[in-house]
């Protein structure tokens, strides 16, 4: 039976380790996740549809997905610049900066949330100048959601682009320069196409993370229904009102969106491996 599933090997421990893996995966991840789908299956299609398309819920999708897209786009531009500067140039403190780029991965989201809120509040270090100079309110508005999502998404772009940039072959650029291309032409025609798969992967990773983000956003968003309420918060609100079915229905919509994104990310990574077989 086992031999039909796997190729023969002299190494021991296949049954034990695969057994532990499958049991643990099922107990911790698969069975609880399936509970969300089974719970939702108790709803009729009409009931489900009316829960997940209620105006307040739809407004939250627009904010969550819109702000996540915008944050990922901002991070793609600045993340590319940061990766470029870290790989190509030298300046004092570069290694420290390089290490700190991962801060959003390591800093708990609640800490990031209160720090960003205090900074961008109307009386905060940054917020007071934005208010004074441009009349811009960031904290407690959808703009605050965007700021929090830019914070948590930044390392995804930098860390996917950086290794590709490091492996870039200098010969191609030299050849292009010898043939008379300007630096800008070399960037747009030679470097950028090579980086594109990594940029798209980083974009998708940052977007996927941002859509589900909760901790850093709830503090800064202000959480006004229809205006600055993100979808994960809708789930929490419904749970606090003991509306388990409603919370689960919205969760299923988000889960399906995340699974589609996960497939897309896997495809992008497969695609970029095919483009750069050396890696």
């Amino acid at each position, binding site marked *: 039976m086992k031999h039909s599933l796997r190729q023969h090997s*002299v190494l*021991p421990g296949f049954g034990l380790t695969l057994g532990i893996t499958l049991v643990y995966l099922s107990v911790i991840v698969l069975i609880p996740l399936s509970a969300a789908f089974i719970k939702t299956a108790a709803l009729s299609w009409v009931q489900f549809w009316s829960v997940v398309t209620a105006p307040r819920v739809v407004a939250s999708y627009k904010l969550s997905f819109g702000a996540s897209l915008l944050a990922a786009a901002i991070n793609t531009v600045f993340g590319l610049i940061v990766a470029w500067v870290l790989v190509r140039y030298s300046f004092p403190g570069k290694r420290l*900066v390089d290490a700190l780029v991962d801060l959003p991965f390591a800093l708990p989201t*609640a800490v990031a949330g209160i720090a960003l809120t205090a900074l961008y509040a109307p009386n905060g270090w940054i917020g007071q100048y934005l208010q004074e100079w441009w009349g811009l309110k960031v904290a407690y508005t959808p703009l605050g959601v965007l700021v929090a999502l830019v914070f948590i998404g930044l390392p995804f772009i930098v860390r996917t682009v950086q290794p590709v940039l490091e492996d870039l072959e200098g010969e191609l*650029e030299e050849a292009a320069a010898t043939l008379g291309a300007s630096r800008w032409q070399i960037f747009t025609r030679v470097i950028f196409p090579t980086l594109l798969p990594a940029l798209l992967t980083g974009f998708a990773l940052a977007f996927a993370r941002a859509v589900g983000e909760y901790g850093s956003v709830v503090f800064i968003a202000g959480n006004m229904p229809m205006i600055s309420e993100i979808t994960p918060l809708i789930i929490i609100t419904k*749970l606090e009102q003991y509306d388990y079915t409603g919370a689960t229905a919205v969760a299923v919509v988000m889960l399906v969106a995340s699974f589609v994104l996960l497939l897309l990310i896997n495809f992008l990574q497969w695609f970029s491996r095919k483009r750069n077989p050396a890696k």
Partner: protein
Amino acid sequence: MMWDDVGTAQALPAPSISKSAARRGAREEPVLVRAGLIFIALGFLLLFLFVPLASVFAGALRKGWEAYFAAIVEPDAWSAIKLTLLAAGIAVPLNLVFGLAAAWAIAKFEFRGKSLLITLIDLPFSVSPVIAGLIYVLVFGLQGWFGPCLYVHDIRIIFAVPGIVLATIFVTFPFVARELIPLMQAQGTDEEEAAIVLGANGWQTFWRVTLPDIKWGLFYGVILCNARAMGEFGAVSVVSGHVRGLTNTMPLDIEILYNEYNFTAAFAVASLLAMLALVTLALKTLVEWLARNQIRRDLA
């Protein structure tokens, strides 16, 4: 081409210098562009990373050291610290054992459905933390599958410590496994097969042959797993019930203090987690450096 570079550098140092000078000319932007890009990158990082980090410590020390230490030794803060350490202390070792088992099965054997299994292991990273909490409420909550049965036997999981531990395990599930799988796949099975053929048993092979090769990757996965376990907010928030002194972890304590407008205390607890983040980044950088050195030694 890589070989070509190495060869030139070792045998003929002089031409290699002129070559690299020529390359620099072709690969570098004008000084003004370089300075501008560095300015933009550092400005962006300053605004979005460094200033927020600094503001945590500034907020914590706003009322001086005395208020800072008072906020940390406060009994509710202290019990939150202990609960956070307990949750991470259970979640990290369990995910460590799982990560080793999964990586052994996936990297050392060929079987059908392997890529599906790898995707499923990564799944918790693409699930919103709030949903991670919700699914355990659906399974163990009073309205859930096992809720009534657990209630009869007076076992509390949701709004109690076991729920917090479960939610923490879920959100940190892939860290060790996803670090080890590619590493062990790259190392292949030759050394282990040789050890087995020479008469070592499975455990000896693992301890003496495999573990020394993966130790840095393993450590790397563990510190990232630990940072997330101690800092998790969304998933734990759903299952905790927010009882101060009983089911409050450090991130949840920060939220309560902040919502009570007790900003100094909130930032004081936050500063502990920020220090944890900085230690994590420092260890991570150190491990990356050690691993690079190990590879260099192995090649030499």
